[in-house]
């Protein structure tokens, strides 16, 4: 009996043990599968799969030439040279080998080798040939990583228009930043299962999303004209000991920009070495200034188009005019007596354009709310008070006072003070006079490039009609007198009729209290031939330190480029 009982007890105990073990196993299985299932599954997938980003090729930027498309921004594969000092066995040998291939000072390499960091970048623009040489040397601790970079074939020539691409592959400044999304394209992705070493293996679950390369563009710029303009502005800035300068050339009928330069410039291939970041911005669109007398042509255009004055309308120039108790004088206190509207522009009379402003309203003897409103409306129609929309990053909007501003503010605005514009906006507005009264959108993109062919060519965008063709022609005719008999005489060319206006503008103080004593901006805005303009050009020279007005600082540069433009457009002399 006792033996049977023991035997049965053992069986029970064994059964309980086995069942318990099964229950524990099932419980664990339930825990792993049901409770922690998703977490473990995710971990497994992350260990067994990898995502590889496939970079898209950035679109190129071209200009169109007689011989075909010429690339001014290309892609280039370069290498980043980095060092992990922990793995460097022979420091002197490493220094010697690197300096055999690269021009990096020994002390810089030694500083990296003696650092306690594990990854220090020595250079970010190692060429493929240099990288190949370094790879062959098999230097322990020396790391070479390829990455895409940009090559600008003309160096500084298009620096401000193009901008550059930074180390993260993002466009900075200029066209590179403005069109970054289109140029960059979209990176692709390869999701793949990997083996234990992380090497991709074939699997039906692998997915591939192909990269979408960026768009390539051709710009309206002309390389030859750009070079002539760059040389002219450099000469103007240096000979006048000025701080900086800009030139813009635009086709008035299409709005196509043929040249846009600033000086000083920089080499976008070596953007890392630029210490003064203000050099990066395209001042032709990003820097506001008070245009001064160059603005008078817009006031006169408004007067002529409204029918309130004609080129022969006369007024008595007493040398000064009082507005709201404040006296406004002509430059250098000149007074000329009875003068026509043509004289007003030719002699650049402040009192004359205030007279025009007065005529725009209900009482021709004073500035009225109506005259301010009419003038304001014209400025809006000329495109002032907003950006032009040119394909450039960082364009700033001009500042135009509302018609509710003081009368004296509007009197100042009539001759270009107390109003701020950027160079591009002034070119666009004066382009209206050169384009039979029509405002077109200025643009840099001439079309897209696919397979070395230009597709989707840009179509001229007419913004609005601003003034009558007759009034525009009258304004142009008046402007020719500035060149023939006025301050633009240095750009006079035998056989060519050039319309223009000089401007020597004061520079407002940073604290807003008046103007700087010894600072001015010399400028010349003009177009030619006056009766059928092929180009509008603006030259601006900031803070010249030599004596003289814009006729000495800006006009010579205009003349140099204009001479080249007549050849470019094959304009024969007519007179």
């Amino acid at each position, binding site marked *: 009996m006792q033996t049977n009982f023991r035997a049965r007890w053992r069986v029970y105990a064994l059964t309980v043990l086995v069942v318990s073990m099964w229950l524990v196993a099932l419980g664990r299985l339930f825990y792993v599968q049901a409770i922690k299932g998703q977490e473990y599954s995710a971990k497994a997938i992350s260990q067994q799969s990898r995502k590889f980003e496939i970079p898209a090729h950035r679109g190129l930027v071209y200009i169109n030439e007689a011989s075909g498309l010429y690339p001014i921004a290309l892609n280039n594969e370069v290498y980043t040279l980095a060092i992990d000092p922990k793995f460097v066995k022979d420091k002197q040998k490493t220094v010697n080998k690197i300096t055999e291939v690269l021009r990096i000072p020994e002390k810089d390499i030694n500083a990296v080798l003696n650092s306690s960091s594990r990854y220090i970048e020595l250079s970010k623009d190692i060429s*493929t040939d240099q990288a190949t040489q370094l790879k062959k040397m098999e230097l322990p601790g020396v790391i070479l990583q390829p990455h895409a970079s940009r090559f600008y074939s*003309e160096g500084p020539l298009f620096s401000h228009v193009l901008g550059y691409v930074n180390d993260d592959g993002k466009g900075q400044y200029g066209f590179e930043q403005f069109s970054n999304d289109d140029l960059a394209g979209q990176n692709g992705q390869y999701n793949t299962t990997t083996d234990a070493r992380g090497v991709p293996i074939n699997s039906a679950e692998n997915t591939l999303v192909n990269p979408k390369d960026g768009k390539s563009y051709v710009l309206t710029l002309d390389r030859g004209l750009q070079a002539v303009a760059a040389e002219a502005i450099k000469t103007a800035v240096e000979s006048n000991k000025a701080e900086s300068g800009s030139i813009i050339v635009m086709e008035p009928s299409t709005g196509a920009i043929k040249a846009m330069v600033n000086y000083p410039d920089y080499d976008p291939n070596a953007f890392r070495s630029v210490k003064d970041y203000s050099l990066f911005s395209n001042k032709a669109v990003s820097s506001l200034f008070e245009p001064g007398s160059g603005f008078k042509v817009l006031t006169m255009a408004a007067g002529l188009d409204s029918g309130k004055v004609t080129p022969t309308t006369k007024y008595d120039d007493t040398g000064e005019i009082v507005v709201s108790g404040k006296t406004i004088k002509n430059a250098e206190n000149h007074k000329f007596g009875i003068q026509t509207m043509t004289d007003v522009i030719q002699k650049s009379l402040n009192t004359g354009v205030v007279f025009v402003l007065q005529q725009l309203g209900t009482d021709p003897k004073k500035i009225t709310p109506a005259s301010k409103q009419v003038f304001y409306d014209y400025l809006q129609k000329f495109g002032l008070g907003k950006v032009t929309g040119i394909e450039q990053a960082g364009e700033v909007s001009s500042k135009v006072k509302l018609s509710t501003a003081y009368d004296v503010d509007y009197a100042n605005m009539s001759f270009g003070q107390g109003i701020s514009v950027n160079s591009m906006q002034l070119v666009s507005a004066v382009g209206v006079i050169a384009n039979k009264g029509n405002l077109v959108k200025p643009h840099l993109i001439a079309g897209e490039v696919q397979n070395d062919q230009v597709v989707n060519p840009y179509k001229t965008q007419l913004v609005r009609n601003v003034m009558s063709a007759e009034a525009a022609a009258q304004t142009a005719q008046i402007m020719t007198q500035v060149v023939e008999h006025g301050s633009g005489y240095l750009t006079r060319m035998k056989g060519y009729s050039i319309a223009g206006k000089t401007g020597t503008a004061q520079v407002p103080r940073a604290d807003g209290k008046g103007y700087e004593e010894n600072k001015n901006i010399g400028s010349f805005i003009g177009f030619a031939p006056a009766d059928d303009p092929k180009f509008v050009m603006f030259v601006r020279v900031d803070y010249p330190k030599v004596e003289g007005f814009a006729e000495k600082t800006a006009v010579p540069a205009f003349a140099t480029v204009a001479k080249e433009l007549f050849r470019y457009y094959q304009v024969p002399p007519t007179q």
Partner: protein
Amino acid sequence: MTSATAGLRRNQNFTRKKLEFQTGPISIGLMLLGLIILLSLLYLNQITKTSVFNYKISNLQAKQNTLETSKQKLQIEAARVQSLASAKTNASKDGLVKTDAVSFATAR
């Protein structure tokens, strides 16, 4: 009655024994094994082919990358050669001078 049917009737005891394949568990097992081996060989063959093609594709991709890099290099070199700086250097080497006077012919 034809002679053939008459013949059959005369030999009434004539029987035709059908041939039958009998398959036991061993033969089924062997057949399955054979089938598995055959399928395995086919599978291995396909895998090998895929690997070979993958290798070829990798090679072609590497070649494509090399060609693209070469193309980039050539584009850069071509642009460099055509740059204004290069043109200026060559112009002075070749003794070229700038034209100042341009004459226009009048069409009659």
